[in-house]
Each structure stands twice: as C-alpha cells, then as structure tokens.
C-alpha cells in the first residue's frame, strides 16, 4: 500500500471518528445540569443489586464484559512489555548492591508507609463493592506500595517479596478466575457475567453477589501485572549490564 493510499485511509478514519465523536458530544447532557438519564438508570440498577458503589456495579455487574476486555488488554500488553524487556544476548545479570545511599528521612517514610499502603490496597480491593475503588485501583495501590521498598533502598528485599515466577502465574490466574465467574453465570442463568449469587444486604462486605469476587480477581491480575511490568524495568535499569562480547560459555551452549 502506497503512502498516499494510507494517508487517504487515515483521513477517512479520522473524519469518521470526528463525526461520531462530535455527534456524541452534542448529544451529552450539559455540564453540571440536572438531567442525567444514564445515572438514573445505573444508580437504580446498582441499588437493586445491593451494590453500594454504583461504579463497581457498572464495572463488574452491568458491564462486566467490557471490564473483561480491558483486563485482557492489560494482561496482553504487560506480556508484550515483558517480552520486549527480556535480557538480550549482550547483557549479563549482576548482583544489585545497596547502590547510592538513601536519605534517612526517606528510609523512615518508607518504613511507615510500606505497611500502610499495602493495607490500604488490600482494603480498596476487598471493599470494591461498597466504597470507592475496586480491583484495578486497589491492585495498583498494592503494587505501588510494594515498590516503596525500592524507593527506600531495599531492592533485595523487594526481589525476595515478589518472586516474579509466582506473579507471572497469578496474573493469568486472575484473568482465568474472572472469566470463570462469567461462565458460571452463563451455565447457571444462561447469561454471560450474570450476577448469580445472592445479593445480600446493601453496604455489607458480602453484599452485591459476584461484584466483590470479580473485584478481587481483577485486583489479583492487576497487582501481578504492575509488579511484572515494573520488575522488567527495574531489572533492565539496575541488574542487567551491557557486555561487549557474548559470553564464551553461552556460545558453546548455543552450539
């Protein structure tokens, strides 16, 4: 395909997207107004299913298939990044020392905020159906909390706390649990991602049926994804060093 044809196709695509987007924006209710048809429908549906956090109700119950798509995209792109960041033939792994000295105040703040952040992350995942947050937010907070150890100069401890082999597996397992709950809905009620568990009482930890389970599954996949992603970057930046010639023993092994 020549350059001109590609440019024409790009222009057609952009025009189409701009047209659809423009029509959509014009049809939106005014900013700060009182008329919100989608909100009215979503909130009443969320309350009907005893889900106090309506955003979670939309993400994990009313539009769970969309969330499944998003999660798949996340896991697939992390797998691609991990493949890109794998050690090349001219790179050798070295032991990461303590490196540059870390400020005492940084060390202290890390010690205080590491347990607090991990706890907040678990809380946000577990209470996804009741309070703001959910699997994605809590998962990222949890992974960020773990990496506070790196900020505090404890890279070796971080490496021991998050064995990559295990996190690579839990990443996939989170995704599998998510689709398994969706298929359970299909098997029991004849509808993919149908909320088949009892709804329970509004604002209780066990309320909202499958929402809390799907939130935990997403949390598992997201925390593993972010850990694997950052591990790739950390390995490249800290542990892998460039050597001019591929190692002799490696060459022999290749033969």
């Amino acid at each position: 395909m020549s350059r001109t044809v590609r440019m024409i196709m790009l222009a057609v695509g952009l025009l189409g997207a701009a047209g659809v987007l423009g029509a959509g924006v014009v049809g939106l209710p005014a900013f700060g107004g009182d008329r919100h048809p989608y909100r009215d429908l979503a909130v009443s549906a969320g309350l009907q299913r005893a889900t106090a956090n309506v955003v979670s109700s939309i993400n994990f119950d009313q539009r769970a298939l969309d969330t499944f798509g998003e999660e798949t995209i996340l896991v697939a792109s992390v797998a691609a990044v991990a493949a890109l960041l794998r050690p090349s033939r001219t790179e050798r792994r070295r032991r990461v020392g303590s490196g540059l000295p870390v400020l005492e105040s940084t060390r202290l703040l890390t010690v205080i905020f590491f347990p607090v952040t991990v706890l907040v992350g678990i809380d946000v995942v577990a209470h996804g159906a009741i309070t703001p947050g959910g699997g994605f937010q809590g998962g990222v907070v949890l992974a960020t909390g773990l990496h506070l150890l790196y900020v505090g100069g404890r890279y070796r401890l971080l490496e021991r706390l998050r064995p990559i082999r295990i996190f690579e597996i839990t990443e996939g397992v989170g995704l599998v649990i998510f689709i398994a709950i969706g298929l359970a809905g299909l098997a029991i009620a004849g509808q993919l991602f149908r909320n088949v568990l009892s709804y329970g009482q509004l604002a209780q930890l066990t309320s909202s049926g499958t929402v809390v389970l799907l939130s935990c599954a997403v949390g598992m996949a997201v925390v593993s994804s972010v850990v694997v992603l950052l591990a790739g970057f950390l390995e490249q930046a800290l542990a892998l060093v460039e050597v001019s010639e591929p190692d002799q023993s490696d060459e022999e092994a290749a033969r």
Partner: protein
Amino acid sequence: MIIVIMVLSTVVLIGAAVVVFTRTPARQAVTLSVYGLLLTVLFVALQAPDVALSQLAVGTAVVPLMVMLAVRKVVAYRRTGRDDR
C-alpha cells in the same frame, strides 16, 4: 463549586503545558508526577473518587517511575558504549 472546578481546570491546563514544554525526559517525569497530582485533585472536585485513585497510583507513581528507570537504562547503556570504543 463551579468556581473551584474552573480554577482547578485552569491549574491542570497550566500543569499540562509545563509537562509538554519540559524538554529533559528525567525532569519531565517529575513534572508529570506533579501534573498527575493536580489531575487527582480535579477528579476529587468532580466527585469521581474511583478515577482519582487510579490517577494517583498510575499517573503519579507508576508512569513516572517507568520513565525514570528507562532514562537510567539509556544513560547506563550510553556510558558502557563509550567505554568500549
């Protein structure tokens, strides 16, 4: 409330301009992090705590960290390349 949102939107726009016009990637990671924090405050003002939480964790912590680590790797790579020659 509308005044708070307007002020915050203006601050966010200024922050975005600062990020775009920061030329060094390592410095850009820092301004990006601050910009993420401003955006988080705007989302809280717009009553979207879910989005604010995602923005805080991803935009303020994870993405700047990835940029910093990438910059560090590039710098180390250039240094070894020069030593070899």
